[in-house]
């Protein structure tokens, strides 16, 4: 793995490839945890599809010491057998009723098929960003790929489940956006600022009825 400085107080750790295997991504997540748990004065650590980004306090540790420490952690990663951590799956209930799935007709298939294709897979969380709790997921069935809307909507409702290109995800709050909306979840994606998922977790969407949606939504609000 390579280490490269990208600004005064940030460096990236990456493999010389654009797309990583799941095992390689798991290694990155493990490295991220090791860096967080180390004695280094870390301000932020983050993981993306193919790299770990580290921001540290340059007034407390010199860049060369940070790089050296990270090199040691990387070497240790190679020696330690990455124990296949118990796969954490977070279930997200989604109501695919047409009241919420306002772009379902764009998919050129019966709604039952859309639901089947969307709910059958376990999606890997590669990173979080854009909005607190917004997940970048991998594993969408190719038959569900759909280009973003030409003109983004000014407001997409909180909880909306959508598809854009080869991505699927959930809007954790009201936001403008160009995703194709196929359903809505009543659950909170963020609790007191902390997202309910982490990179490396898996997400499964489960279809619920509109009555169940309303019940869960009421529970949330009370």
């Amino acid at each position, binding site marked *: 793995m390579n280490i490269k400085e990208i600004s005064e107080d940030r460096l990236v750790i990456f493999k010389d490839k654009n797309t990583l295997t799941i095992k390689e991504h798991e290694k990155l997540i493990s490295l991220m945890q090791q860096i967080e748990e180390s004695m280094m004065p870390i301000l932020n650590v983050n993981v993306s599809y193919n790299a770990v980004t580290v921001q540290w306090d340059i007034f407390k540790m010199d860049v060369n010491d940070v790089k050296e420490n990270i090199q040691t952690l990387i070497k240790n990663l190679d020696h330690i057998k990455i124990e296949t951590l118990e796969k954490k799956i977070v279930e997200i209930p989604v109501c695919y009723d047409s009241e919420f799935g306002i772009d379902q007709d764009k998919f050129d298939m019966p709604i039952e098929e859309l639901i089947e294709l969307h709910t059958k897979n376990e999606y890997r969380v590669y990173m979080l960003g854009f909005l607190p709790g917004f997940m970048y997921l991998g594993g969408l069935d190719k038959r569900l790929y759909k280009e973003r809307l030409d003109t983004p909507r000014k407001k997409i409702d909180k909880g909306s489940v959508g598809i854009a290109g080869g991505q699927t995800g959930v809007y954790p709050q009201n936001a403008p956006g160009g995703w194709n909306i196929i359903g809505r979840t009543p659950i909170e994606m963020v609790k007191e600022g902390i997202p309910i998922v982490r*990179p490396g977790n898996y997400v499964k969407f489960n279809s619920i009825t509109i009555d169940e949606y309303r019940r869960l939504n009421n529970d949330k609000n009370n």
Partner: protein
Amino acid sequence: MIRIIKPGMYSSIQDLGRTGVEKFGQSESGAMNFRAMMLSNKMLDNPLSNPVIEMTIVGPEFEVLKDITIAVFGTEKIRLNGSIVSTASFIELKEGDHVKVGRLLDTRGYIAVDGRMNSNHILGSQSVHSQLLDIHPLRKGDVIKIDGANEASLEKKIMSKYPTVKTYKGKPVIRVMIGEDAERVKNLDSFFKESYTIQSDSNRMAIKLSGTKIEADEYDIVSDVTRLGLIQVTKDGNPMVLMNDRQTTGGYLRLGTVAKVDLPILADARLESLVYFEEISIEDARALYNEEMERIQGTYYLP
């Protein structure tokens, strides 16, 4: 203690921002001009990280409910009970005083108070994020409590408030470290030669620029983590500098990163004003940042 009568264009409480939460999708927020923010605290012998009120273009109007002392950066004068008072040093205010900050010199300014401003902490910081979180910018009627004012009398300081800024043709020069996707840019030399205009729709999320369009075959990248000062170029060829309330991930070409030492210039820059860009190495940018922090914490800005 003060009560807000008019909040001004966009005034909010900011400290030096939140750490450790970027991985959740929450950017750090915090004062956009860290230099002015820290110096305004220094004028009052406060810890430099104490929360301040950040002002945008037009400052607030407020009523003083309990005696306080303030330091104001971003304008040379304010109105106190109708009379003009200089902000060259701190200003002592009495219960019942009426303060009107008025129009700032440029885009941003700061009000520090002797002691510590009380407001809600979220994820370890009192900084308000313009798009997220349950804490909001200042509104009419807000009452801000201040704790622990300095009992000992403060030594009057007339501070040199402004750093020496490098200029070209009278416009500020912003130093930029080359970014991950710069090799895709066909006219990088133009970016470092021509002037760029700060657009009016700039805000705490990004400073938007217009000028010579940046040319590249492909502007999209696989979504990746952003950072403070990152210069992104969107399909229309216009660069933008991501700032404190930015989205933490982005899918656009990364041309470079503004050196931290020059972020205060961008934070203050008047809308529709011009700037130039110059390349700098990461090592040199780091040295300049170190130097500037030493100046802020030391005696450089003091008389």
